[in-house]
């Protein structure tokens, strides 16, 4: 599998150099050409920062303290200003969570698009305008010629997100970084935006790194998932494996906290995860998930947070594999009731939710 994007041992620090607060710790992740990779996790798990780091868009006082980011073998972190601008202009695009403030309120949307086209692709005025209208049409804006004359405040959230996607993909980048692109939208609009992303992937072979905290969004769209917790990637696998055979207790807990339509008849509280995620600067010995983990054992404090292969293209940061053990123990009687229900529940969820 040839990787388009290869992140290795990325670390993002805040705070002073003598007392750094590490928000992203030793993250390694790869995205192949044409692949949609989901990056899922709670707020503050470092997923957005990882995404921004790829574009080197981490502002002071944050900084990329260690690691490498390679795009087609070229080191993004070593690029000069000029090369970086080129990289951002042509090879990677980015869309954001909040479509309400991601377009400049004083410019008509057609003009913003045309500007990008003429700056980044060198199109002439008339050509750029024409192409802008085509792009708006391409992202499903009805009556694009007239809509191009609208200001952002005249459009709905979903439409604005479409315009944003048109803008980010105007110069046909091979990688789109989508930082929670559907979080601010209602569910119907969300589905349309995800369809659009899938279509862009199919039409142009564009790879997408999709950041979300919503497993529903991830399940619907992604080929592969990386689960982040406390600045670490704790598990990565293809989508079907995550649903049917999650290895890391955090992944399992996260999956169990997703509400299901099928359980609506028997109202049952979805299991939340007790406790709270670690705070920035909170140094935990061993596994970062230990304080909240249902399977925690004293020696978890000595576990090193690295991904270990547990199956084909499946890696987990938990060396104890309590879920695999539970699954085999479940065959015999007397397994913990909670674990049993949990394992059964997500086993059922898998086939339904995976497209």
């Amino acid at each position, binding site marked *: 599998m040839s990787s388009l994007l290869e992140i290795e041992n990325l670390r993002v620090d805040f705070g002073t150099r003598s007392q750094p607060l590490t928000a992203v710790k030793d993250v390694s992740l790869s995205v192949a050409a044409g692949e949609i990779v989901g990056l899922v996790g709670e707020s503050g798990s470092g997923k957005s920062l990882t995404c921004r780091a790829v574009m080197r868009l981490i502002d002071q006082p944050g900084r990329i303290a260690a690691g490498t980011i390679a795009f087609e073998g070229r080191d993004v972190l070593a690029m000069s200003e000029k090369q970086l601008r080129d990289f*951002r202009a042509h090879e990677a695009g980015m869309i954001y969570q909040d479509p309400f403030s991601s*377009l400049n309120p*004083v410019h008509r949307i057609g003009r913003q698009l045309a500007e990008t086209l003429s700056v980044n692709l060198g199109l002439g005025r008339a050509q750029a305008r024409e192409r802008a209208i085509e792009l708006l049409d391409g992202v499903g804006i009805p009556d694009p010629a007239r809509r191009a004359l609208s200001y952002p405040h005249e459009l709905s959230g979903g439409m604005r997100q479409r315009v944003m996607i048109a803008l980010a993909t105007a110069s046909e980048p091979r990688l789109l970084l989508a930082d929670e692109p559907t979080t601010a939208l209602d569910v119907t609009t969300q589905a349309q935006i995800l369809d659009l992303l899938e279509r862009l992937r199919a039409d142009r072979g564009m790879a997408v790194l999709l950041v979300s905290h919503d497993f529903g969004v991830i399940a619907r769209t992604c080929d592969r998932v990386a689960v982040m917790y406390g600045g670490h990637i704790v598990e990565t696998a293809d989508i079907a494996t995550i649903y049917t055979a999650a290895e890391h207790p955090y992944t399992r807990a996260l999956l169990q906290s997703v509400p299901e339509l099928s359980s609506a008849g028997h109202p049952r509280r979805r299991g939340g995860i007790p406790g709270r995620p670690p705070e920035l600067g909170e140094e935990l010995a061993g596994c970062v998930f230990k304080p909240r983990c249902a399977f925690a054992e004293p020696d978890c404090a000595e576990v090193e947070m690295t991904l270990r292969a547990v199956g084909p293209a499946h890696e987990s940061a938990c060396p104890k594999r309590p879920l695999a053990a539970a699954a085999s123990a479940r065959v015999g009687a007397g397994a913990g009731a909670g674990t049993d229900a949990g394992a059964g529940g997500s086993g059922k969820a898998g086939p339904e939710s995976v497209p």
Partner: protein
Amino acid sequence: MSAVDLVPGAGAPIVPAPSPSPSTGSWPRRIARAVRGMPLQAKVGAGILLFLVLLAILAPLIAPYGQNQLDFANLLAGPSGRHWFGTDAEGRDVFSRTLYALRLDLAIILFVTYIPLPIGVLVGAAAGWYGGVVDAIVARIADVMIAFPFMVLVIAVIAIVGPGVEGVLIGVPIVAWALYARLARSEMLVMREQPFMLATKALGYTDRRAILRHAIPNLMRAALIYSTLDMVVNLLLLASLAYLGLGAQPPNAELGSIIADGQNTLLSAWWVATLPGLVVVLFGIGAGLLGDGLSDGRRHGGSV
């Protein structure tokens, strides 16, 4: 005009406007629509300012007498059909003098307000965008400018170039850019965190393009609103300097000097100082209403 375009009615409910493409049409129609959308107080304010500006421009046509035309038969005559604002101690028609004074004052005010504005906004925007050393230098220079007593600085400039309007034309912009720079800088610090400004980076735009084409059109709004206040301050400054004898030199009519002259006869002939004074007040009210109305639109519109 795009800044005005975005001003919705004050307190208008936020509904997804199904209006037929509200941002199209010819220029006059768009301006008319923008004016209709302004809050009432902004309309009233703009109306007052427009009225005063028209009076100033048309002064030579409207004024019944010349600004220095003497009428010894009517010294200190009260307001009447012949002399609407009465006459002063030299028998000059106060109404005519007020019109010419307005003409001179408005020209000076527009210059000293709107020349420093773009300079200050540009410098402040750059400081806010780049941060770090650039920001530290600009912010400190601006602080020094603002910390210095304004009036004293202008008087010092006048001491160098001699009494007259030149002192104002030079002295005020030296300081005023710092006010706009500071305003633009603080707005920029907020705005550069906005996703649409991050997007300019993610789209690979140059800093120059990001600042000039994307940030400044948004910053201008705050600067223009502030400038309505600044105009009033400048008018008062001009009047104060003339009152001290450092502004426009006699016999040129200037609001401050007319008021200063009229002060001697305030008890016997109130109109000489009072009526031009009311014109100053009217200008202040007009500019204040316009600024207030526009910033109301800004608050309710919440477009940035």
